[in-house]
């Protein structure tokens, strides 16, 4: 099993376990029928069981080429652009709480342009300014959605 799949299953399992525990606060069944705890409780348990089954099934399977533990460094390096872009977007979204949506977004787009798409600084500045100007024109000026 790949490390990324393990991360995915573990994260979902934690999420399901938290909801399972918190669904105890809601009524499961009453004289009239099922309560609000019925669906989250059952499906959280089902998620945990299915996650476990996937793990068990993968243990009995021969590893693929891209699951070779010795190549884990290469695979992490290959995933860096995706991890980096996601991290940049999380930071930018945090900065959006200070008022502007487009300014942090512009900064992220420039970094992605230069480091991942191979654009020069001037090209990145111009291309992304045009992109955001078009987005601003459509959403803010035409549709009156307050994107600033």
């Amino acid at each position, binding site marked *: 099993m790949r490390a990324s799949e393990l991360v995915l299953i573990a994260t979902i399992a934690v999420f399901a376990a938290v909801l399972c525990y918190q669904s105890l606060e809601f009524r499961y069944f009453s004289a*009239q029928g099922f309560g*609000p705890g019925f669906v989250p409780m059952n*499906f959280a348990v089902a*998620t945990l069981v299915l996650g476990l089954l996937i793990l068990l099934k993968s243990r009995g399977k021969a590893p693929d080429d891209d699951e070779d533990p010795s190549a884990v460094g290469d695979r992490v390096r*290959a995933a860096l652009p995706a991890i980096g872009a996601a991290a940049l977007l999380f930071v930018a979204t945090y900065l959006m709480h200070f008022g502007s949506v487009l300014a942090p977004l512009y900064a992220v*787009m420039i970094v992605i342009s230069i480091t991942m*798409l191979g654009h020069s600084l001037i090209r990145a500045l111009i291309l992304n300014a045009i992109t955001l100007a078009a987005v601003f024109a459509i959403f803010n000026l035409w549709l009156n959605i307050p*994107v600033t």
Partner: protein
Amino acid sequence: MEALGNLMMGFGEVLTPFNIAIIFAAGLIGTVVGALPGLGPSAGIALMLPLTFGMNEASGLCLLTGVYMGTMYGGRITAILINAPGDAPAIITALEGYPMMKQGRGAMALGISAVASFIGGLFGLGVLIFLAPIIASYAIFLGPPEYFLLMAVGLATVMLLAGDSMLKAFFVTCLGVLVSSFGSDYVSGQIRFAYVPELIEGIDFVAIIIGLYGLGEVLYNLEKKVKLELGKPRFSVKEFVPGRAELGEAAAPTMRGSVLGTIIGIVPGAGATVATFLDYALEKRLSKRPEKFGTGEISGLAGPEATNNAAVPGSLIPLITLGIPGSGGTAIMLGALIMFGLRPGPLLMQTSGDIVWAMIAGLVLANFFLLLSNVLLIPVFVNLLRTIQNNLANVVIALCVVGAFSLSYSAFNIWIMLIFGVVGYLFKKNDYPTGPFILAVVLAPLAENYFRQSVMLGQGSAAIFVERPISLTILVLMILIVAGSVFGRLRARKLREMRNPEE
């Protein structure tokens, strides 16, 4: 014949230069709004509502229904070109359209989907014109048990969207149900898992689909260093006008999709999303090469596209004849009808028949305009994509972020979009199917409410599902779908084992 006479009367009202210009503009605006991630029919109609304040009833309603129809055409554009569905029904379009785009057949996918959308819309309108009152009179016999089973049939299609691993499909389906359980529980009135006030209304599934498909795809492409090679902008009619072979392949799925979309569209609450998923499952089941689904199959694209657009006139039937809005878009239409002083319900056709028939005539006209404008606009959209292909990742990121922001004018939905962007990336990287997940997110809240209401109606007993003839019929249908899927999978596995005994 009376219906035709009424329709002619409607055309008499609509065919003025002002109304024709309005319908044309509404279709175009709807197409562009529908193409933007985050903005669907509800947003399109809501945004255009203030423009109708100074208009007469017929013109105002033509504008709104034209936008509604246009958004259904537009939703497919970004789904095909950048794998970012504008709304939930376009998710299925992305499943087949985007692989076609990656094979350099994006323009053809847009052409086929435009034609299928037109036929679906026209079929739905035909039913609306001739059979609306009759069909609507039957829809009132459906209660929570039937609605629950209809949703369950939709969920049963998970089996057909599962891909290679049923275990992974069930795993993501359960996750989808859990994600959908956030927010207000409409049966008991309690609020579940609202860690922040924004979660009281639950997680907006449009933010989820923008992240899962749009951002997830960008992150995956950045890792795999996928670069589009679409060439320089050019114009070639052959590129986007479907030929005889493509039309032949699309014909039967389009007709099936039209019928299914209209029927499901009529059922209040089911709507175009359920209809497209069901039709996709149906096409996959009927296909001679189901293994090709997900790689750019024309039948998997044409059928759901026709379904999607047939559901629009279908959903107007209960609205006009019973006053029941079947979807978010028709709920806003209901508000618009009331705003114009009309009373949607059984008497609407008698008291305000002239306005209703003018609106229907406007829809017929909009459907023709939309086919024309959408086919003519294909080179514009495809060449726009060719122009931006070197910066496509950033364009999609910008549209995803701003589209998510526009859902509630706050950063909250951007966080949701980002989280599901990462989930979408991990799903894709590890071959987890996204279809069952999103199907569960969309259908589970409805299914849960109807299920619990049904059990309450049955005073704690589930026997209510087999005691009512319509629900029993749907139950049998669902069992057949599940049994057929299981049997088909077992048979395929047996055949594989016979061919490769050492496996």
